[in-house]
């Protein structure tokens, strides 16, 4: 029964390996990879419901009981993210079917996407710090391959920076792991939490926690996001959407896990630091989002703003704000994927990427234009779309904690998001049309359908907030009360 929770990691890897051998059968690859994603999503829904009735599930590999072996732990937080990640990947795959091109498909595009998802799911599910490092590397290596696939000059140029930055970040991760192991003598997350709570978080452990903060901030794009806009704007649209939706979220997940489960005893140091970093991230992201005219850059800086916003929830760390952050992570995965797909499609249709070179698209492609409007509203947080619940809860949390500066930054950033996206909307969708009826490129259904699916996702996540609130509430409850997690892992046979 508990064996189910390893499937989100194992299935994509196994299928990916099989697909490598089916290189020339593109149709088969497409169908199998899409079916795998749907299967993973179905499994996650099932596991999520099981968690509600039976509590946190765990799987000890090889029968080694914690804290000795490696294990997977599935709580509501991780399963919600696994579920969203699988759905978003499935939709990005549908987009890739009609946009990525045969060259990519024959060069193992689908296996790499599956490996990427395996790494993401593994990072979300693991209960061991070193295993988290390994899963991060699985994810990163797949992302290295995906970002370079195609081999254009810009891609190669940006991917070198991306890879080197991540190698250095991984190095810091290993240093932090070594110091942590030396200090506490364990790497099992629940065991770590227990030991740190027993011995108290002394300055040494706080320093180690800051090294972890540095590592995960690099991966999440919190403050250390200088690599992000460049590398997220070079790969093909479907890949950029996957990156924008998934990769930073895994870093955010790791930050939440470590700083709510293990290092929560010195919030004056760590959580204030996260708060300051989140504040600066938001300000810098806002500047970037307004400064550029290249739509891909604007969108990449919007990712940065969202990272800052989500981490405000962790910085104030009240139950309401953490619940809000979880809502917002789920919302942001869907909405950012949609935004990246829309912008990529804009560039595909017009062949241009500056907002002042594109105009009047809504006359040629009305549905497309209104979809862009929906994502603008959703990211701004207008009810009933999905961004609203997250924003209101994070806001409530900051008021409860009395962090009015973060509150102000969070809501001013919403206005900047609205401004930066409306700028694209007004410039590129309204005004004189630049495409005459004769040279209008037909918008393929294969490109429009995934965007519509994501739009349905954001609308139904907004309207159905009540429906998922039980799951999100449980996830937040586990994060706020680390004892639940520790009990589930170290509390004997299950």
């Amino acid at each position, binding site marked *: 029964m508990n064996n189910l929770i390893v499937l989100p990691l194992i299935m994509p890897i196994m299928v990916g390996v099989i697909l490598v051998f089916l290189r020339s059968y593109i149709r088969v690859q497409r169908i199998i990879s899409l079916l795998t994603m749907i299967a993973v999503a179905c499994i996650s829904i099932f596991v999520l419901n099981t968690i509600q009735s039976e509590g946190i599930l765990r799987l000890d590999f090889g029968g080694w009981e914690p804290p000795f072996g490696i294990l997977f732990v599935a709580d509501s937080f991780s399963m919600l993210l696994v579920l969203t990640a699988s759905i978003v990947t499935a939709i990005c795959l549908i987009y890739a079917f009609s946009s990525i091109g045969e060259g990519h498909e024959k060069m193992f595009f689908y296996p790499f996407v599956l490996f990427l998802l395996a790494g993401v799911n593994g990072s979300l599910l693991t209960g061991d710090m*070193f295993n988290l*490092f*390994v899963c991060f*590397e699985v994810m990163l*290596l797949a992302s*290295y*391959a995906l970002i*370079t696939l195609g*081999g*254009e*000059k810009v891609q*190669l*140029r*940006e*991917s*070198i*920076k991306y*890879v*080197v930055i991540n*190698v*250095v970040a*991984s*190095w810091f991760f*290993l*240093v932090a*792991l*070594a*110091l942590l*192991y*030396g200090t506490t003598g364990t*790497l099992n997350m629940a065991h770590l939490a227990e030991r740190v709570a027993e011995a108290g978080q002394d300055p040494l452990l706080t320093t180690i926690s800051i090294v972890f903060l540095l590592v995960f901030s690099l991966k999440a794009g919190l403050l250390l996001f200088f690599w992000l806009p*460049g590398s997220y704007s070079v790969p093909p649209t479907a890949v950029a959407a996957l990156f924008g939706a998934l990769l930073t979220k895994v870093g955010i997940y790791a930050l939440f896990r470590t700083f709510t489960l293990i290092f929560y005893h010195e919030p004056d140091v760590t959580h204030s630091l996260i708060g300051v970093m989140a504040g600066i991230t938001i300000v810098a992201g806002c500047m970037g989002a307004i400064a550029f005219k290249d739509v891909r850059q604007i969108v990449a800086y919007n990712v940065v703003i969202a990272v800052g916003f989500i981490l405000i929830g962790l910085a104030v760390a009240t139950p309401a704000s953490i619940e809000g952050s979880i809502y917002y992570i789920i919302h942001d995965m869907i909405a950012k994927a949609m935004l990246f797909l829309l912008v990529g499609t804009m560039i595909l249709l017009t062949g241009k990427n500056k907002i002042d070179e594109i105009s009047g698209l809504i006359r040629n492609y009305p549905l497309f234009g209104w979809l862009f409007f929906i994502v603008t509203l959703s990211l701004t947080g207008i009810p009933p779309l999905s961004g609203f619940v997250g924003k209101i809860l994070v806001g409530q949390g900051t008021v409860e904690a009395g962090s009015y500066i973060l509150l102000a930054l969070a809501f001013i950033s919403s206005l900047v998001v609205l401004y930066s996206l409306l700028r694209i909307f007004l410039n590129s969708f309204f005004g004189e049309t630049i495409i005459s009826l004769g040279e209008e490129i037909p918008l393929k259904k294969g490109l429009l359908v995934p965007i519509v699916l994501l739009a349905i996702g954001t609308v139904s996540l907004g309207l159905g907030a009540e429906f998922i609130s039980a799951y999100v509430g449980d996830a937040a409850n586990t994060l706020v009360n680390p004892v639940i997690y520790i009990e589930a892992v170290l509390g004997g046979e299950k």
Partner: protein
Amino acid sequence: METLIMILIGILTAVATYLILSRNIIRVILGTAVLSHAVHMLILTIGGLKKGNVPLLKQADAPYTDALPQALILTAIVISFAVTAFLLVLAYRSYQANGKDDLHALRGTNDE
């Protein structure tokens, strides 16, 4: 012994930092390779250098040496090997496409 190794780790890290900060891609890659060696040594040292017997239950007497750091290093070595190999190929492809191995020349277009 631990102190000596720690000093060695410091030297390795310094060398690696110097290499990574240089402009030539190959030097940067070599820097990352040296950097990974430094951290492998760190993991080994921090777990305590050889203190006891081989950790084989019932075949050797306690106290046992901690075997976990070695398992961690083995994993880390494999990963850093793969990443270094990837980086070398990437640098070569990039050199073929862009004709440059100088990182300053790879900064991007002027209008950025």
